[in-house]
């Protein structure tokens, strides 16, 4: 009996050691948590919450039900494949809903929302809104048809019914060039497909930019790490100098250099390498985007590479050489493997920055060098189709995460070092 109780270790005040330890640890954890709490709250409020809010817009579709509650309810019994436009009861519900909506000025907002799905909805709602207050007490169907014959169009009602639920997959379908039709999900007509092409191009160009950053950045970082401090500091300033210059200034400078009447072409013509009539096209296409973005993102490759290379002890290479390795073997078998974590960090950094870039492609990309983010920016700030913008953004985020996981599987994420 007494032996059993003896096995439980207790502290001096008689409490079990484990509980006491746990308590002390909890206090410690609490303190640590409180220390990071302000940062955590800050990040959640200013970063996570807005992003989640924006991403939710890609499925959110409450506007139809909120603006036309009775119509949505009445439409539940209407069969969109019947080939018949709805009956008087539904028109009466629509009239009642629209009267409220016009008073609250929400009908035009619904019109522009539905116009993303069906061309003509915007003016249909604006026009009907102007007349609905003057409509006489039933029957409404004829009065609506008199305001605009589009109310007799089956497609209008099918769209209304399809987008009645508070959530929709419509934006995601649009983001992959598909659409919901009365006969199921179909690809959009050939002449309206653009997003998949742009996703593919964004990935391709980002990879090209990452590779060219690596090819240019590696020797510079190597030089930076190998040179004596005084010279390497000067070189470092040269690396950082463009970093401190405005992005727009750097992009415009590339225009001056690369355009057909620009500095490089002028020089080539003067030297006689190319004829005056065959000046090279180096901007407003993919080449322009790759050159300008490689320049802009180069420091993000050089800096992690440099900080990793700085930690590689020169004695390893000396040891390899003293054991008979050639310069190349010593570099390739001894130095390079140790710099791989820097390559990983730089490549991930450059790639992720590149994939979301839009200002530079917009200015130097012409038509073949623009990214998916240019369309996202367009939908957020110009067309106001925030749902589609959010869907495209979510897909881009998912693509980055998937690539990140793939990278982790192949190279290993713990093999990334920033210094």
């Amino acid at each position, binding site marked *: 009996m007494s032996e059993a109780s003896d096995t439980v270790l207790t502290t001096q005040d008689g409490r079990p050691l484990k509980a006491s330890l746990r308590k002390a640890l909890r206090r410690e954890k609490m303190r640590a948590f409180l220390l990071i709490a302000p940062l955590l709250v800050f990040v959640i409020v200013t970063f996570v919450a807005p992003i989640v809010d924006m991403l939710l817009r890609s499925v959110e579709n409450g506007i139809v039900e909120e603006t036309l509650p009775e119509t949505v309810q009445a439409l539940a019994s209407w069969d969109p494949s019947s080939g018949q436009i709805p009956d008087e009861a539904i028109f009466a519900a629509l009239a009642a809903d629209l009267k409220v909506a016009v008073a609250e000025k929400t009908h035009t*907002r619904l019109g522009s929302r539905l116009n993303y799905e069906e061309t003509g909805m915007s003016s249909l709602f*604006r026009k009907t809104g102007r007349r609905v207050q003057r409509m006489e007490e039933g029957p409404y169907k004829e009065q609506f048809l008199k305001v605009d014959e589009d109310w007799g169009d089956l497609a209008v009602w099918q769209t209304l019914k399809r987008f009645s639920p508070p959530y929709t997959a419509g934006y995601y379908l649009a983001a992959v060039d598909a659409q919901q039709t009365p006969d199921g999900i179909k690809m959009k007509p050939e002449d309206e497909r653009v997003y998949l092409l742009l996703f593919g191009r964004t990935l391709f160009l980002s990879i090209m930019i990452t590779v060219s950053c690596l090819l240019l950045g590696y020797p510079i970082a190597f030089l930076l790490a190998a040179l004596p401090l005084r010279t390497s500091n000067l070189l470092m300033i040269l690396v950082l100098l463009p970093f401190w210059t405005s992005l727009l200034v750097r992009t415009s400078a590339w225009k001056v250099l690369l355009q057909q009447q620009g500095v490089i072409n002028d020089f080539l013509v003067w030297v006689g390498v190319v004829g005056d009539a065959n000046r090279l096209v180096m901007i407003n296409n993919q080449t322009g985007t790759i050159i300008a973005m490689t320049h802009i993102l180069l420091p993000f490759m050089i800096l992690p590479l440099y900080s990793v290379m700085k930690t590689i002890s020169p004695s390893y290479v000396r040891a390899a050489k003293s054991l008979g390795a050639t310069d190349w073997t010593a570099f390739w078998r001894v130095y390079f493997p140790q710099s791989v974590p820097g390559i990983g960090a730089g490549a991930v950094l450059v790639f992720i920055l590149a994939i979301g870039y839009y200002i530079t492609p917009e200015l130097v990309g012409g*038509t073949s060098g623009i990214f998916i983010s240019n369309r996202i920016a367009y939908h957020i700030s110009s067309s106001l189709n925030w749902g589609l913008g959010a869907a495209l953004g979510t897909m881009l985020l998912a693509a980055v995460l998937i690539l990140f996981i793939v990278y982790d599987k192949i190279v290993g994420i713990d093999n990334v070092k920033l210094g």
Partner: protein
Amino acid sequence: MKLKTAILAGSALALFSTAAMAADMTLVSWGGAYQASQKAAYTDPYVKMNPDINVIWDESSAEAVAKLRAMNEAGNVTWDLVDVVASDAIRLCDEGLAMPIDPDTDLAAAPDGTSASEDFGDLLVSECFIPQIVYSTTFGYRTDVDEWGGKTPDDICDVFDLEAFPGKRSLEKRPINNMEWALLCDGVAKDEVYDVLETEEGQARAFAKLDTIKDQVVWWSAGAETPQLLADKEVVIGSTYNGRLFSLIEEQKQPVAMLWDAQVFDLDGWIIPTGLSDERLAAVKEFVKFATDTQRLADQAKYISYGPARKSSAPLVGKHADLGIDMAPHMPTDPANAKNTFLYNYEWWADYRDDIDAKFQAWLAK
């Protein structure tokens, strides 16, 4: 003691700054020469008369619709008056983000007593829109192109004529205007353009016409690009806003001339955001009444070559403030320039914008 002073000073400062904030008025515009002309013609004289008002400029007009929507959702509208193009004003009105105004009570009558609604006339395209200027999107061309053999383009269709006028062109990276011009030059009558453009075949026709020059086009997205491209000889002909071309030709003295044929008229003006406090609303309404009266609109034309939106302002347009040249012949509305003009159809584009833009982007990417 020290702490007490600090607190006192702090609260005094806070009081002072809220007092100052009451007189702040945030105007949103496009920046650059256009905003400078508004400052010189509207706000400078107004602040001179009302020294307690502090005008803050925000150069966000290009993203005004998106930002106003976000501000409205957050319930914190920080802008008092926003300069937007007419199509954006219509959208803001549709979304309930701009306030309807009554021209006859909110705006000043013309000096001869004509009511504001009559003075502005058709330009009041939306019940929320307070027009300021008429501008046009039109073409400028270089006058020193050897390959053209002394000819100069004087017809919109010369833009599509690569044989007579070889060289690169710059066009805006959006369907609006380009589709209309393409159809006009494909033989569609001016008053049928939008009817044709409504149909799939009509759209295909416009794209086919644009296809004939596609590989010779540099696409712009900012109004300053065409003037730069023309000045650098990157393009020989290009579309942009007429005021940009005016400053390229008259201020920078570049060998460029205007092609006014089939210029597309558009409007720019103010909207008052919804959700302002009564106090701010009263202040901004007073300012708008002043800033859009006959004399003020005529004054703006001293600094930039955009036509005043009031009929009564036209006779008052004088000379350029610095260059001293007569401004009337540089106005898009001048009879000599406006022989053949095209009116942008706001309502139509509100419907077809999303659809045609998708097709236009797909066409561009091909």
